[in-house]
């Protein structure tokens, strides 16, 4: 490279650096200023909307009057305010709020946004319908259930869950077995919000699930929802051949204090795979069933460290019966069982004895 060309390059770089630096500084100042203006305007909108909104929700103002008072306010902060408000109200008040939201035309904008080509616009709109019931044909939400981004699929599912019709619930249930662990937590929460209307279709879906992944997730869902109507599904899953399904079923059964549950768990405590045994021990502890003390004490001699730990913790949760067993084992001949029992009993070390 000749000195002249280096010089030219340096000049170009210097100019670019200066320009970029200036742009960065302008952007920093601009972003901060815009944020400040936005905060001010939000505060102003909040202040001006406070009375008409409260009056409308209390029934002192009718829809038309509230709309007339709110319409002149800036739309973006007003929409945000109404969406935030949706988290604070329930029942009839929420329905009134939804009416107002739609009357102000925000619902139409969100519906349009659901069809946007930009995923984050769709996501924002779908999240709105997790708070306000979607009105109209469900197809834009149904399409989002197939989106490559899980966040969008879940947001659409929540929106469909709010709609709550059998058709919408059926669509939500298509996600069973198709989510990550994170999505599963969200799905449980969505089904929990739907409540009773979801139980029948969910039971059918879980009974008919062919894919082991769907059954495993189904077991988790049943364990989280804890509706007795789902217990027969778990009893059926307890006969499954898939270790993952069995492990999760064992976990779920720990949430069902039904007379039939401990026997199933005690059977799973003898399963050849240790994750199933460990989970069964944990669930027996959760159920605190004294009749299982004998089986749990036997599990203290399990070759797996995790099974021994979970069995010991479970025994401790049984109260006096379990602790008595643990104490006996802690002085027993089996070194590993004794160590685990002492660990879980939190036996103090007596240094003076040594």
């Amino acid at each position: 490279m000749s000195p002249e060309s280096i010089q030219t390059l340096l000049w170009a770089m210097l100019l670019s650096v200066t320009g970029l630096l200036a742009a960065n500084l302008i952007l920093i100042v601009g972003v901060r200023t815009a944020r400040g203006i936005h905060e001010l305007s939000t505060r102003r909108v909040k202040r001006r909307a406070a009375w008409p909104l409260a009056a409308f929700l209390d029934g002192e103002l009718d829809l038309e009057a509230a709309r007339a008072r709110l319409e002149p306010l800036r739309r973006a902060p007003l929409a945000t305010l109404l969406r935030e408000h949706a988290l604070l109200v329930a029942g009839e008040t929420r329905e009134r709020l939804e009416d107002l939201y739609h009357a102000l035309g925000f619902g139409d904008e969100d519906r349009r946004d659901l069809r946007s080509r930009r995923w984050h616009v769709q996501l924002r709109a779908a999240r709105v319908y997790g708070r306000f019931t979607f009105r109209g044909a469900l197809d834009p939400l149904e399409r989002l259930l197939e989106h490559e981004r899980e966040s969008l699929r879940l947001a659409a599912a929540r929106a469909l869950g709010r709609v709550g019709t059998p058709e919408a619930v059926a669509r939500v249930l298509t996600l069973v077995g198709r989510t990550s662990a994170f999505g599963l937590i969200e799905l449980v929460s969505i089904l929990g919000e739907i409540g009773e209307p979801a139980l029948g279709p969910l039971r059918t879906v879980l009974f008919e699930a062919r894919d082991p992944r769907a059954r495993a997730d189904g077991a988790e869902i049943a364990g989280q929802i804890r509706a007795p109507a789902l217990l027969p599904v778990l009893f059926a899953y307890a006969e499954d051949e898939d270790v993952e399904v069995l492990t999760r079923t064992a976990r779920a059964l720990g949430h069902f204090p039904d007379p039939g549950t401990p026997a199933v768990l005690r059977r799973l405590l003898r399963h050849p795979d240790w994750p199933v045994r460990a989970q069964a021990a944990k669930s027996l502890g959760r159920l605190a069933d004294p009749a299982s003390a004998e089986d749990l004490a036997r599990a203290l001699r399990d070759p797996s460290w995790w099974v021994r730990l979970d069995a010991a913790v479970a025994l401790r949760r049984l109260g006096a019966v379990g602790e008595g067993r643990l104490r006996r084992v802690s002085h027993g001949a089996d070194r590993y069982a004794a160590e685990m029992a002492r660990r879980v009993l939190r036996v103090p070390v007596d240094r003076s004895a040594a």
Partner: protein
Amino acid sequence: MNGLVEVGIALLVAFNHAVFAYFLLLHGSYGVLLLRSFFAVRAHLREWSAQGEVDARLMASDLVLPISIIAPAYNEERTVVESVRALLALEYPAFEVILVNDGSKDATLARLLEAFDMYEIFQAVKQDLRSQEIRGVYVSRTHENLVVVDKVNGGKADALNAGINVATSPLVCAIDADTLVEPDALLRIVRPFLLEPERVVAAGGTIRIVNGCRVERGRIVGIGLARSPVAVFQVVEYLRAFLFGRISFNVLGGHLIISGAFGLFRKDALVKVGGYATDTVGEDMEIVTRLHRWHRERGIDYAVEFVPDPIGWTEAPESLQVLGRQRDRWQRGLLDTLVRHRRMLFNPRYGAVGMLTMPFFTFVEALSPLVELAGLAVFAGSLAVGAVDAAFAAMFLLVAFGLGVLLSVSSLLLEELSFHRYPRWRQVARLLAYAALENFGYRQLVAWWRVRGTINYLRGKKQWGRMERIGFGTARR
């Protein structure tokens, strides 16, 4: 004689050309990384815009994976109780805190035993990983989920290995005892493990500087900047390192460092690779590199993630002497990891790590201080003997410093667009000023410490160097 002078001048010019080429490569790569970060941060923020509601649902669920927090402590009597209180106050549905007292010579253990009403219990520890002898395991009468492990001193890595052995959760969170983790940080850092439980083996969060912030009962209640210029320079450095360095490598799939101050790992993955290496001072980088290597060599699909919004606040050294020792150690740790895993360099078998990250860390991170200082010295020499024109030299220096400032200012812009943690105009103005000032002396000093670290590494020095802790008790200026 004249001929010799001419050859010397020609060599100087050639060296200057090489430095210039390196300089272009360096800043070109920084530019690409920066651009990637902007898009990655934007996508991340859009995806998680409703994080508050998600956090609430995670808190209410018992499907989240339990976490064992492991905090090694060595001579931390001044801060340890407050640090443990902060850890116990974290928002997460299922976690235990394992504080490993690594043979402290001060009253670290006594303070803990007293503050949390602890007593020693019998516990046979499962020896998944080798560590120095455990002298005792203590549990608390007031906090069921607190365990203190007292062991013979073996260094931070050894303490972490001992903690992993005691941990009973599938995920372990390695944390420095002097790091204040934001209350919702665990809920956020666990996300990758919930999104891809089979793949993700490790995830790191962002580290920021606590100096100057107001801390009450182990929580940050007011974000500020320290009076000490040394601390503020580090704020700018950390913003640059975390907001664009780690995010962009994460996008490329070759994230190589999870800060020792705050990282979450799958316990089984750590055990499989043999735990933390005890014979290095860069155990945090080494373990991540080993995780990459182990999985790549076996053809196992995996991921190491960086999540920008869980934040740990750490204390930065305010004296040049302590900072110098820290940077010296970081450089030795970096070189040690690069040398141990040199076969990964430019090896396509290791994917993005071998082809992008390792070369970047070798030729940019490890070499840049050497090139920078040598370049400056030769440049000054060239100027003195007239091998370089003064106007050209001035322009080159201007461009070099301008690019340095641009990089830091862009990180500040990124911070402003994304997390916006410094609310006052004055704070941003100070950060901008320091972003410019760091190029005049501070940067060269850091380069020198790193060169010294390189020399010490070549001489086989493996000490950590002493750190001085002030404590979080009050607002620190």
